[in-house]
């Protein structure tokens, strides 16, 4: 009888904090499945949140017994290996042709990183250390892997909250961006037409582009070489034309494999004692600020540019597509233009700004690594 009782003794170890984490895990699974919010990440993360918060869970380290999720975290994410592989996949999925046909769209990618730096300052004002603030601010990169990369680099204890915020807001771009854009633009501005010249881009230019970007970014911010280099390596595989099977693997199998592990391994950072804190709520709020200020930065920059080029005006909504949430942001902006005028299609410009946001966010991550010292 006592042996049977001992089988259930672990029930006594359940804490209310763990029960709350099960609910949070359940919510993440619900959002992923029912609302289709980044399901590839939120479903494994939700399940992982439950897994690591079972009392005395064998999935995470307990005393001297190493848990498999902690082991995987230390060998794949803490040393950035898994993320680098994911960057190859992202690079292979990116088509930079719309950017090469209209290079000035790159400016919006840069302007829309403003939210990152604004949030870093705000986080330090709220009492976070500079390293934690940098890890929080990078949520504004609107690029999950970059957020994980920077957070892991600074070994922040808030990694779980940062990742949940980053991926949740990426999925919420269609809800976050439109009201912000409407608040800072007029209807007349939203109706500005932008003729798209279908400038064809040569294959040679497309092949040289990733090599040149890597060289320039690497010389300016050497710490960004790993990030941008792997991204551009993936793009080179795509564009060179002689590695079709590798390109196919990099675009499909590789990201799927990495993502399969990423979500559940990242959940090892969602232990109740680390996650259920006031700081988590602050991080969730700061992440929203980062996305809003990215959008504001991009749109206002476009409006400033219009002051100098009155004959060749830019629809300021394009600036909002400069955040890296690809291709959702471009679609949102194009849809908003169509809502104002059903014949005004700005998709190609928006995609140009959106892919440039992908480069700029990785660049911003690299620049932060150069500017904020590791503890």
């Amino acid at each position, binding site marked *: 009888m006592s042996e049977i009782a001992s089988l259930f003794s672990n029930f006594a170890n359940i804490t209310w904090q763990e029960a709350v984490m099960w609910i949070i895990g359940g919510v993440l699974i619900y959002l992923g499945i029912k609302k289709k919010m980044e399901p590839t990440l939120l479903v494994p993360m939700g399940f992982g949140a439950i897994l690591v918060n079972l009392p005395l869970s064998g999935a995470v380290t307990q005393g001297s017994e190493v848990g498999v999720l902690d082991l995987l975290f230390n060998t794949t994410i803490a040393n950035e290996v898994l993320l680098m592989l994911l960057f190859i996949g992202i690079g292979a999925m990116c088509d930079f042709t719309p*950017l*090469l*046909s209209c*290079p*000035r769209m*790159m*400016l919006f*990618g*840069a302007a829309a*990183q*403003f939210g*990152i*730096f*604004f949030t*870093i*300052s705000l*986080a*330090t*004002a709220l009492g976070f*250390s*500079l390293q934690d*603030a*940098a890890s929080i601010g990078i949520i504004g990169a609107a690029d999950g892997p970059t957020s994980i990369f920077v957070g892991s680099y600074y070994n922040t204890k808030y990694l779980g909250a940062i990742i949940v915020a980053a991926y949740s807001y990426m999925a919420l771009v269609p809800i976050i961006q439109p009201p912000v854009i409407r608040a800072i633009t007029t209807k007349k501005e939203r109706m500005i037409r932008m003729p798209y010249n279908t*400038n*064809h*881009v*040569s*294959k*040679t*230019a497309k092949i*040289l*582009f990733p090599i*040149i*970007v890597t060289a*320039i*970014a690497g010389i*300016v*911010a050497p710490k960004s070489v790993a990030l941008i280099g792997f991204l551009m390596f993936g793009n080179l595989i795509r564009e060179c034309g002689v590695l079709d099977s590798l390109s196919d693997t990099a675009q499909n199998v590789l990201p799927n494999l990495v993502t399969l592990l990423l979500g559940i391994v990242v959940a090892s950072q969602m232990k109740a004692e680390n996650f259920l804190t006031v700081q988590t709520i602050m991080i969730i709020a700061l992440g929203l600020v980062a996305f809003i200020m990215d959008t504001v930065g991009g749109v206002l920059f476009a409006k400033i540019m219009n002051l100098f080029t009155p004959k060749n005006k830019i629809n300021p909504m394009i600036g909002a597509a400069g955040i890296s949430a690809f291709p959702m942001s471009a679609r949102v902006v194009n849809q908003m233009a169509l809502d104002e005028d059903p014949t005004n299609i700005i998709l190609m410009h928006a995609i140009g700004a959106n892919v*440039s946001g992908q*480069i*700029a966010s990785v*660049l*911003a991550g690299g*620049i*932060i690594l150069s*500017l*904020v010292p590791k503890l």
Partner: protein
Amino acid sequence: MNSTFLQSLRIMGVGMLGIFVVTIVLIAAMVILTKIFPAGKEKKEKDSREN
């Protein structure tokens, strides 16, 4: 005003400036690339090889 906040303002200035500088260099590189290797030239070479 704590020193970390002031440091973060400096990071904001230098960081945004850094991104824009790299961006401008990249735009210049893209313009030069598409001028040196225009699509039309490649297409003509391909056509002449086919003929």
